[in-house]
Each structure stands twice: as structure tokens, then as C-alpha cells.
């Protein structure tokens, strides 16, 4: 430690030049979701519990399909960024990296599965 200068210890630990990127992406995705979530809840929500044929017919229409697709994709990106902050707050070292990678892959998988299902329903 005695051979390290103060600058050397600070290097690589982040700089103010990029510090706002995460915050800004959360802000933008939260505004998108503030619009999408009420629309999603009151268009897709009533379909839960409906017969299969009705669900398929409803989700084949452009508006419900686009709302569902947008909500799933933006929601999963927002979840990925938010869950990453929680992991960064409560875990360290290798555990932290494994959890962040895991949560990121889960978010991508849920988004891809949702889009695949919507594409198959609509086409």
C-alpha cells in the first residue's frame, strides 16, 4: 500500500464522466413505463383467465400486441438496471459479478420469450 499513490488507488474506480449514464437510462425507461404500465394493465390484464381462443384473437390485434411487446422489453431492461443496483448495494466480488450476469441473462431471456410468444400469436 505504501508504494501506491493516491491517484493510483483512485484509478479505475469510476469517474464522474460516466456516472450519470445509469441514472439517465433508468429515468428514460421509467417515463416509458409510466405510460406503458397503465395501458398494459387495462388492456392485457382483463385477458388473464379468458378462454384460449379469445386470448389468441385479442393478442393477434396490433395494439395489444405492440403494448405487450413494448412493456415486456422496456420492463425487462428497467428491471435489469434496477436489480443490478440492488446487487451492487448488497454483494461483493465474485458473488456480485455472478448475480449481475445472472439477472442480466434472465432479463434477456424473459424479453426474448415474450417477444417470441407475441410473434407466434400475431402471425
Amino acid at each position, binding site marked *: 500500500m505504501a508504494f501506491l499513490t*493516491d491517484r493510483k*488507488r*483512485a484509478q479505475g474506480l469510476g469517474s464522474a464522466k460516466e456516472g450519470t449514464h445509469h441514472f439517465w437510462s433508468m*429515468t428514460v425507461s*421509467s*417515463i416509458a*413505463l*409510466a405510460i406503458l*404500465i*397503465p395501458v398494459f*394493465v*387495462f388492456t*392485457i*390484464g*382483463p385477458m*388473464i*383467465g379468458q378462454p*384460449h381462443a379469445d*386470448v*389468441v384473437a385479442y*393478442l393477434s390485434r396490433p395494439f395489444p400486441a405492440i403494448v*405487450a411487446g413494448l412493456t*415486456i422489453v422496456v*420492463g*425487462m431492461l428497467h*428491471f435489469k438496471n*434496477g*436489480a443490478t443496483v*440492488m446487487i451492487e448495494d448488497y454483494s461483493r466480488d465474485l458473488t456480485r459479478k455472478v448475480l449481475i450476469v445472472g439477472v442480466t441473462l*434472465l432479463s434477456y431471456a*424473459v424479453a426474448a*420469450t*415474450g417477444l*417470441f*410468444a*407475441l410473434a*407466434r*400469436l400475431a402471425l
Partner: protein
Amino acid sequence: MADVNRGNRPLSPHLSIYRPQIQMVSSILTRITGNALIVASVLVVWWLLAAATSPGYFALADGVLTSWFGDLVLTLSVWALWYHFVAGLRHLYWDTGRGFDLPTAERLGWACVGGSVLLTLLTVALV
């Protein structure tokens, strides 16, 4: 980066020392609800996948989502969703630099709780 008193600095008070206030409780709930929503997200996407796969598979997913347990999870998730929604609006308001004085911050905290309950009741009634 001075080496004075390194590692022996006073700690900020922990949760066990703080008396719970609406500001801290409403902030912690924002994190819990946001992260817990992954459960409902996976369930709904699974339900979509089942609908796209076959009527038989859909019957299984539909059965799980409309069972008493599925109903419980989805109803709690609707509250979590609205709570996170209202608390998120509060953050966007705070981001403009407003609402930081104590009376307003306390009112906003209670507004998150009240608003989320109202929106949940509205959703349960309408959906």
C-alpha cells in the same frame, strides 16, 4: 484520498438504530416491489408462451394463474406494480429538484401508500 483515519471513520446509523419513518419505509418498499415484480413478469410471459404454444399448455398456465395461489400472487403483484409506479413518479418529481422539504416528503411517502392501494382496488374492480 488522504490516509488520515482510514477505516476508522464513524458509521452512518443502521436500520436497527433508526426509528422507522415514512420516507425510509417508502424508499425500501420501492426497491422490494420493483425487484419482486420479476415473479409476475415471468408468470405473465409464461402465460403468453403457453397461449402461443397449444390449448392444452394454455390450460395449465391459465389454471396456475387463476388458482387461489396465482390470484394471490397476481393481486399482490398488482399492488407492487402500482406502488413502484407511484413511487417512480415521486422520483421523477424529485428529479426536478422539488419536494425535498420534510412536510412535502412525508406527504409524498403517504401518497405512495394511499395511491397504490387506491389503484390496486381500482384494478381489482375493473380487471
